[in-house]
């Protein structure tokens, strides 16, 4: 009887240790390897462009492989400058560069170079709105991204073309759903 009790006690102790180890193992943060050249990830993205008449947005679904999210965003910005199809128009001025980016919850904050606010590119209410929304729709197709905030040289820029306010994060305009 005494021996049986001892065996039961040892068995319980082993179980307790196992459960504790399991809990700690689940709670320990998993260290992910830093992205490297050899480690590419593929994203499904919906690129959006204004059509040539600037009357609506057109969606092009693609998958992009990149080694990091920064590279992915740079790639998207490049593609937004130069649509492949002839019936689409660019959504970003040429020459814009991504200086940095960060995430604030589900808001993607882009810090762009000063070419972004080039006045000629943002003339006309609807053209400007469609172009800006093309960028927003494209970037909010990334996982966990609800809205986009724009900075230029780390500063909040003035209204874009006199039509679009950039002091707050911009969400997709539902009336333009491509």
């Amino acid at each position, binding site marked *: 009887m005494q021996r049986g009790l001892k065996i039961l006690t040892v068995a319980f102790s082993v179980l307790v240790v196992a*459960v504790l180890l399991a*809990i700690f193992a689940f709670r320990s943060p998993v260290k992910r390897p830093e992205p490297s050249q050899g480690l590419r990830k593929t994203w499904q993205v919906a690129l959006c462009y204004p059509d040539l008449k600037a009357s609506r947005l057109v969606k092009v679904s693609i998958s992009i492989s990149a080694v990091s999210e920064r590279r992915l965003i740079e790639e998207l910005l490049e593609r937004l400058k130069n649509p492949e199809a002839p019936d689409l*128009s660019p959504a970003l001025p040429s020459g814009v560069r991504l200086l940095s980016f960060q995430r604030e919850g589900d808001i993607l904050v882009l810090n762009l170079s000063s070419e972004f606010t080039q006045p000629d590119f943002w003339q006309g*209410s*609807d053209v400007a709105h469609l172009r800006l929304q093309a960028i927003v729709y494209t970037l909010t197709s990334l996982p966990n991204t609800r809205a986009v905030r724009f900075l230029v040289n780390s500063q909040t820029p003035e*209204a874009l073309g006199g039509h679009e*306010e950039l002091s707050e994060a911009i969400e997709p305009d539902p*009336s333009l759903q491509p």
Partner: protein
Amino acid sequence: MRFRLNITVAFLLALLGVAVAQTPTKLLVLGETFSDLPVFWDAEEPLAPVGSWLAALKLRWAVRDDGIEFETPNRFKFFWSKASTVVTVNGRNVEVTPLYQRDDVFLVPLVSLARALGLTAIVNPERKVVKLASPLKSVEASRVDLGCLVSLVFGYPLPTFPKTGVLRQPDRAYADFVGAALGSMNLPSPPESLPLTNFRLGQFSDDPLIVRFVADANAPLSIRVMGRELTKDGGEKWHLILQPAENRSQWFGQVLLKENNPTRAIFVLVGRLESKLDIRRETNTLVVAVPMKPVFAPDFSAQGDGLVKNAFLASEGDEARLVIELSEPANAYWQIEGDLGIAIVIEAASPRQKQVRLVVVDAGHGGKDPGAMSPQRGDKPRLIEKDLTLDIAFRLKRLLEGAGYKVLMTRTDDTYVPLPERVAIANGAQADAFVSVHLNSYPQPGGQWGTEVYYWTPQSYPLAESIYRHLLALLGRKGNGIRRRQLYVVRHTTMPSVLVEPCYLNHPEEEELLRSEDFRERIALAICRGILEFFGDLRVLERRGE
């Protein structure tokens, strides 16, 4: 010793159990996503606490001590208790897991709920995802006078109207049903006498769930929603009409009560109705004359404790009259409702009646922001948008003041006023209307011309429509449409507000017109007439012969 060990082990196992049970779950309810819901997974099926996610199913529910009373959108009531293993929904007995109660909160078994309501439950325990979708149960197609009528039956009412559209090369039309899941079924063949070649169905998206119906054709098609019916078993039937694109004949599918709140109600006249609707007001009754009878019976199922007390459709020969009885006096107007048809918007009359109306006139751009500029043409000076908008704004101010209005301008000289400041001026003054004056520009000079008016809130549409109509009448330019856009100034102002783009500064012909004072005066007069018509004061100008 043994007692102590037992307590420790039991405590640890309980901790582990709670940790596993409360893993955040993503719950997709028809078209809506609920993340991080504390769904419990340690039972026979996932359980979600009673909460707002039930509203996504358009359910009404009342929590009682011993269970929950539900009412479906089809008005079926059923009671689900802590002891129920069977609930009766619309005369149908459905086996369910009893409700679970924890800390006075009822947890609803999700698979059982789906079974009771006629939904499909897609459960992924590894990824902690549960999807409740309305299953597509059947598709029928038949040839009718107007074209091909396609009817799709779903197991449960969908959250929104389907989105329809057409695509070219090859020609095809589609309808997207949000919140739906594809089941196995036989698709009918298209009627032969139309340019239709094939029907297809697919699960277009998994998050949100969207079923896409596609009609392939060998010529351009048009597709429109024609009507909706709630089925006797708690489901929903959507009718689509497919026609050759060149067919522009009028038709009237159905009248639906889309919204019925204490301050606002919306009827939608589904169809292609070209003529302007005549809305007549008789004390607390509105009578809307419609030029033809609808194909389907009216759907007033949204009727509740709102502004609309009662509504019925009366036929008179080939025509129909929609009679709406209101709980209090209200204003009504009609507006285009996307591809669906025409909406009749009814709004409770505002208690505040001002003696003098205040309009905020916003001259676009200014100061360091010149706006658009015309291209250099010979010796002519380039036109600058900020100068012209200010000129037109001053003209508009003079005309409005002449009609007895108060006018506040967001700028009176060449200064830069940030957009939030322009909005603050209008909102702070509690203006009755806001009009932002701009001149358009197109990336390729000369590539576009004509008139556009932008608005955002539904209350702004009548103002936009009125100004647009007068701009077209007085300027004679091409009408590019009244567009709903989230432009900053029309989005953030709280009164009816529009942004007007009467013409293009970088189109050669319109640039020449803008150089003329007479043309700029006509722009101001058209905007003024639009505002006055919106407020029902147009006769002031007409009396003066302007």
